Structure formats: C-alpha cells, structure tokens
C-alpha cells in the first residue's frame, strides 16, 4: 500500500505539491490523473525518495522508501523511460540493478522475456526506440517481483499493441494482489485498466474516485475529467 499524507513539495517559490493526501490499495490498478504540471511526477519522485518532502510524508507499506529493506523487491518503479546509461546493453543494465538487491541473474532473463526484449538485450540501450526504452523501464520495475509498482506515464511512446500489452500486464499484476499505481495525463489511456482514480491539479487533490463513478458525472469520461480539472490547467491553448 502507498500512503501519502499532507505532502508538500516546493521547488524554489513554486509549490509543486500542496498538502496532498491519498492512499493506493492493493488488488487494483489505481490511476493517477491530472493535467500537465499537476504534480504527478513530483509526487512519485517524493514517494521514491528521490526528492525530499517539505512537509507531510509518503510511505510504501508503512515505511519511507529509504527505509525499505530490499527496495527493488518491495517496490518496482518506472519514473521516466530513459533511466539508463545509453552505452550499456539492456541486459547489463538489468544485471547491475539485480546485483544491488541480490536478485539472481536468471531473473534478468525472465523479465527480458516478459517485456519482449530478449532478442535485443545485447544491444546498447542508447539504440533503443522510445517504446523499447519504455519496455526496458518496465523490465527494471519487474526485476525484484515487487508487491508495489509505480509507473509514470508508462504508455508514452508505445504503439497500440504495446498499450494493450501494458494494460494487460498491469491488470494481471494487480489481480495477483499487488499495488499498482499508474500516472497519466490522458483519462482515456487509463480508463480501461484502472478502477480507483486519484485526480490532482496544481498539486492539490481534486478527487479520489473511481472510473465508474467519474463517468456517471458527465456525458463522457473525458468531459467529466475536464470538468474536474478545468480550474487547474496550467497552460491553455486556443482552438484557432
């Protein structure tokens, strides 16, 4: 379970996350929604211990990330697809990460197979397309067979087949009783996979709801989402 309590994070004078509280429970894919700049990535960075909170706290299974005993075996995360050195092969990248948490090298081959990268695992990761980089990120998240998964915009760069694949994968992982927390700025990407939703805007919680509940509030799910977030969109374009 992921618990965020009164979380505040500032960068200089900008408040990226403002007294945000929510919980993510196991067994279902939970969507993390909000327009660009809403604070989704910042929240995930704080949960992962990459950035320190200015107020409040974020815990995974009751503990701060830095207190986890076997981080990769407890939490699997993909914050940005390109979180690897371009000069290293996909396989070496995963082997290095596996070694840190005493994960057997055989598991590297398993996750490569799960994400469909076995054939290109010996290639330098810098040559991977965005979709392949995304798959390598998912492989790294799955490496420790963790009970909690955190993915920031995982469908970015995936082709339609890839999007369908990741939906199925995440749904399957949640059905096994894992906690799966997935961010997106597009409601349509998440609607088919997610049950519960955490919706934020300008760093604040707008709603903790479900896909079913939200779609009842307007003609379409997209309309309901836009109604909810319209007041907190940071950048407006014009139609003409």
């Amino acid at each position, binding site marked *: 379970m992921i618990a965020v309590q009164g979380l505040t994070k500032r960068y200089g004078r900008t408040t990226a996350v403002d007294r945000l509280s929510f919980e993510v429970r*196991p067994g279902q894919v939970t969507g993390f929604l909000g327009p660009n700049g809403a604070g989704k990535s910042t929240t995930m*960075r704080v949960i*992962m*211990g*990459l*950035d*320190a909170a200015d107020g409040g706290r974020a815990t995974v299974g009751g503990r701060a*990330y*830095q207190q*986890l*005993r*076997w*981080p*990769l*075996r*407890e*939490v699997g*995360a993909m*914050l*940005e697809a*390109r*979180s*690897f*050195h*371009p*000069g*290293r*092969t996909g396989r*070496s*990248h995963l*082997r*290095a*990460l596996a*070694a*840190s*948490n*005493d994960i*057997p090298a055989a*598991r590297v081959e398993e996750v490569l197979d799960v994400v469909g990268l076995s054939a290109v695992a010996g290639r330098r990761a810098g040559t991977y397309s965005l979709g392949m980089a995304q798959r390598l990120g998912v492989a*790294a998240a799955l490496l*420790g*067979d*963790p*009970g*909690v998964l955190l993915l920031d915009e995982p469908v970015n760069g995936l082709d339609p087949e890839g999007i369908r694949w990741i939906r199925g994968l995440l749904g399957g*992982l949640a059905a*096994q*009783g*894992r*906690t799966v927390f997935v961010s997106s700025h597009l409601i349509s990407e998440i609607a088919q996979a997610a049950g519960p939703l955490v919706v934020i805007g300008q760093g604040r919680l707008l709603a903790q709801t479900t896909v079913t509940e939200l779609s009842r509030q307007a003609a379409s799910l997209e309309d309901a989402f836009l109604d909810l977030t319209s007041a907190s969109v940071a950048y407006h374009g014009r139609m003409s």
Partner: protein
Amino acid sequence: MTSAVGTTTTRPGGPGGAPSGHYRFRGIARMEWIKLRSLRSVRWTALGTAVIMIGLGMLVLHLAVARWGHMSRADQRIFDPVNNGFTGLALAQLAAAAVGVLAVTSEYSSGMIRATLAAAPGRVRLALAKAAVLAAAVLLIGEVLAFVTFFASEAMLHAPVPRATLATPGALRAVVLAGAYLALIALIGVGAGLIIRHSAAAITTLCVVILLLPALTLPFSTSVQHATQKFLPEIIAENSLTAVKPIPYSLTPWMGLAVLMLYAAVVVGAGTWLLARRDA
C-alpha cells in the same frame, strides 16, 4: 525462486516476499562493478591511457640516451631514470580523473541515477560503494600500468646512462605510488562529480586544479612558490611520489601520499554529504 523467510499471505504479489535481512554494501558494490565494466568507453579509456603512459615513458628515456653526451656532469648526476620514465603520468592522471567524474555525472546526464537510487536509496552507502569500486579498479589497473611502464621505459636505457631496477633504492616505492596516485585522482574525480554533477564542469574544474594551479603560482615570489607548489597534486606526483632522487622544496613521498589521501577524503566526504542532502 527466493527463500521464503518472512513470507506473509498479505503479499501474494511477490515471490513469497523479500528474504530476511536487507540490501547491503556488497550488493551495491557489485552493481557498481557491473556498471563500470559494462561500458565500452571505460575499456577504451584504459587502453588509450596505457598506450600513452607506457609510450611516453619509453620515448623520454630513449631520448635521454641520445641526449646524455650533451648533458653537464651536474645534470647527469641528478638524472632520475625512474621519475623520467613516469612522464606519461601527467596525462594518465587526466584519464583517471575523467573516469572518476563520469562514473557519477553520466548517471545524472543519462537519468540512470533514478534507477540507481531506486535500487540503493541509502545515499551514503551508495556513494561509498561507488568510490570504493572505482578506487579498487583504478588501483589495480594503475599498478599494472605503473610496473609495465617502469620495465618498458627502463629497457630503453643502456650504458653509459644509469638504468634503474626495482632494487634501486626508492624505485619500487615510486612504481607502487605511481599506480596509487591514479586511484587517488580517480577518487577525487568521484568526489568532484558528486559535488558538481555536470560532466563538463567537473572535468574542467579538475583540469584547472591539476594542470593550471601550478602555473598560477608563477607570478608570486619564489618563496611563496616553494611553500605552496609542493601541495599541488601534479607536483606531488612528479616531485614526491615518483622521484627517487630527492627534489628540493617538495614533500617526502609518504607525506605526499598522505596529503593526497586527505584531499580525496575531503572531496569524497563533501560529495557524499551533498548527495545525501540534495534532491536527486
């Protein structure tokens, strides 16, 4: 798959949950070792450095033979074949510094740092593991390189030029400290990388410290130069560590080594402290 110690039924997700205990320094060190050896750039740098360091040593001593007849008695007397054989150390140190810097800064430029910190969130442990692995690897390569350089360049000498062997007083110490110097410079590189986090800025800073600082003392009086230059890394390497015939106004070899170790400890310590405090 993994041992089922500590398994609970509330976590059907994992393979029976994580084993008992917790991730350790040894695991992080293994991660850092795999990272280091899986980059082609590191291998090419080591190879290039070897060619330059050995080649320059051979060239300089080869030229010494040709020059010997034209040298004054006094110059012949202070001619130090060991020290001259390590001329290439001046360039090798830049490679060692760059490898140390890039081991850290490439993590930031590529985004690898996110994956690394997800695997090993204990930042002090991570910084120390990275520093230890890099120092050990560079020490090993540096020692091999120093011995090969010594034998290859001494082989260029023949009568009447005096040739050093490992039995020459101070020679073995000079060779061992030449290798150790590279490891210490690599450590300073790691520290600078942790502090500065940008490849170009960190490498430039180290080049200034290593190559330019000695020149910056030149406008000052001789007494100021004598008092300060001996503490600069480059001068310690040249005049203290690898010198067999004592050079005036320089630290003793072991004092030089101690000063360099102090520098490395301070820079790595500061970098570790900053890594632990700053947002990644």
